């Protein structure tokens, strides 16, 4: 089992982090989320082109890099920490589904960055469903693909990521019951990696603020009431990172462990991320309740992610089944 990133994975992380710090800092995220598109297409284009991230896990014969889920987790942690708007997660979930079911044609466009795609997750709802070029629907052991069809944008809690009602169905793109089952577990790992990034960024924000905000002639980070909550949040972060590394390792190296690891990752990270994001917001005091402060963006992303793959009880019930309780 490997729980510590390799030197190459750390380099990848640093590259994505510095790219996002320059191309999509929080003020740019705010501009993007209030724009008509809801994201900056130029950032997505460079993420796909310069960095090749839309093809990261796509096999080389289909135009991708053929990297593993440990690498993908490192990337999603950074896009999560940056609260990156736009279709990167949606397209990544689509790439996972198409790769696992052996589809080739749509996948080539996704890897090249010329096609954006999304997956219908629940009912007729899809992340970035209004703007995605291709909408994928899981129907039993088949993956259906539709370009076009009716798209109805939804209003969302999280202003940094859009959702829409879409028209499911379309042409059969691939058939594979095993591939679909594995893809669902990999969705759980991918979202958990994003949640780890959101958690880390929300904690870093309040730790930094608690070192400069003064009350009663002392910085608030010198009060045990604050320090002890931050220490607990750090403990949560340590466990969250350990679980994400484990789940990503299982995805790459131990397929038999993947279902349990994936359910564990969603069951732990969903709660952990929201609790840390809400703790971070509260410790900011009144400023954290304002629209202009970023604390609510982490808080809202954390809740949106916690329920993205179904209500949290779904993952806990799955764990109970896997443990044969």
């Amino acid at each position, binding site marked *: *089992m*490997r*729980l*510590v990133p390799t030197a190459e994975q750390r380099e990848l992380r640093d590259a994505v982090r510095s790219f996002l710090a320059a191309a999509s800092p929080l003020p740019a995220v705010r501009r993007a989320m209030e724009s008509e598109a809801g994201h900056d297409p130029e950032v997505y284009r460079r993420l796909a082109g310069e960095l090749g991230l839309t093809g990261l896990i796509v096999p080389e014969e289909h135009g991708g890099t053929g990297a593993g889920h440990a690498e993908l987790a490192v990337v999603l942690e950074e896009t999560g920490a940056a609260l990156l708007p736009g279709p990167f997660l949606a397209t990544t979930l689509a790439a996972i589904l198409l790769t696992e079911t052996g589809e080739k044609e749509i996948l080539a466009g996704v890897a090249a960055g010329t096609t954006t795609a999304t997956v219908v997750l629940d009912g007729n709802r899809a992340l970035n469903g209004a703007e995605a070029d291709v909408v994928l629907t899981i129907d039993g052991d088949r993956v259906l693909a539709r370009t076009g069809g009716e798209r109805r944008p939804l209003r969302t809690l999280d202003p940094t990521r859009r959702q829409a009602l879409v028209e499911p169905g379309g042409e059969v793109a691939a058939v594979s019951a095993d591939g679909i089952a594995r893809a669902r577990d990999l969705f759980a790992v991918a979202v958990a990696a994003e949640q780890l990034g959101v958690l880390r960024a929300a904690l870093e924000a309040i*730790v930094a603020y*608690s*070192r400069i905000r003064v009350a009663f002639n*002392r*910085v608030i*980070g*010198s009060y*045990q009431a*604050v*320090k*002890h909550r*931050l*220490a*607990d949040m*750090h*403990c949560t972060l*340590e*466990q*969250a*990172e*350990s*679980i994400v*590394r*484990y789940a990503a390792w299982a995805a790459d190296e131990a397929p038999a462990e993947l279902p349990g690891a994936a359910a*564990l990752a969603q*069951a*732990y990270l969903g709660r952990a991320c929201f609790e840390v994001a809400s703790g971070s917001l509260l410790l900011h005091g009144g400023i954290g309740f304002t629209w202009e402060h970023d604390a609510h963006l982490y808080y809202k992303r954390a809740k949106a992610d916690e329920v993205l793959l179904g209500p949290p*009880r779904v993952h*806990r019930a799955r*764990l*109970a089944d896997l*443990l044969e*309780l």
Partner: protein
Amino acid sequence: MDLEEYRRRARTWLEANVPDVPDGRAGQGGGAADPGGVAAAKEFMAKLYDAGYSGITWPAEWGGQGLTQAEERAFAAEAAAFTLPTYVFSIGLGMCGPTLVDLGTDAQRRRHIRPLLRGEEIWCQLFSEPAAGSDVAALQTRATATDGGWVVDGQKVWTSVAQHADRGLLLARTDVDVPKHRGLTMFIVDMHAPGVTVRPLRDMTGRAHFNEIFFDGVHIPAENVVGRVGDGWNCAVTTLLHERLSISSGVGMGGQKDNPVAFEALRRSADTADPVVRDRLVELHIRSRALALFNQRLAQETKAGIFPGARGSAAKLLLAELTMFQADLATSLAGPEAVAWSEDGTGDGPEGDAGTAGGGGLAHALALAPAMALGGGTNEIMRNIVSERVLNLPPEPRTDKNVPFKELRTSGEAPR
């Protein structure tokens, strides 16, 4: 010998030599309830040492095996399936011995390390006092210089295995005219010396896991000073670092096989058809896996040369919280049977089985649970350490750092 061969031989040795002790309590010195436990433990420890499995990574010149972490991990992995009767040596192996390896004189290492590793001499650690718990640097036990050595007067408390100990690692105040952290010195004390009184301290489990120790004019020879006179605080920090590492690595601790609050035991005893019960067990699984994976990650980082430092305190805090949660959960799931049981250990607990839920096992686990949250630093102290040394937040305002010790307020009697 390659690692696989080392591991195979260790397994063979363990199978042939670990005594069959059903409740894993041997060597814990349970008093009249466990006569002969210490003698049997010493016999086992000598065999363990002679076979080359005690002090695996310790320097060979002082009596260790001089091998690497890889061999130690391989042995620990095999030993996890057994309950080794080594609890009584855990303080020596986990804290006192490593401190002497780090800071002792060659004469001290030559005299003490081999008998410690072979179980011939049992060690205890003498830091905490009634008025110096979290704030251990406030301790008041005095060591006064005299001809050829020191004379010690004072009281220590929470001292595990002291009733069996031959040697103690003592922290005492040698100067009251300087600030508290600068007036301390570490000593090796002979626990059989005149003036040393050991009294068992009955804890909330009803057993005597701890002792209180009284020093009344106890003479310590000059060559028993560890490190430099006045540098005892830095020495103690070394010991406490080893303590936290030994707690998280489980030095001298038994396996999980007889634990009535373990997940596997609860799965057998609880009604898992009830969705609430199922969800509570899922919660236990989640927390247990989260901490186990964190500990594994810390171990992998250490191996890769990333020193965990104060992050070990996060692992200790999480273990303390998990221990409380688990005992609370197990007793709540069992219901009334958890808190009342018959003398012979039958008819109590869902299975009426002394090895699992019955026989007062759950009640004992509940009563023992707070120990992990208090020993080796309270949860509040761990949170201070994590926030100050991992998150780099400012320390508490301190009014005691630059004032001579004799001018400070104390919880107990006035400083002498």
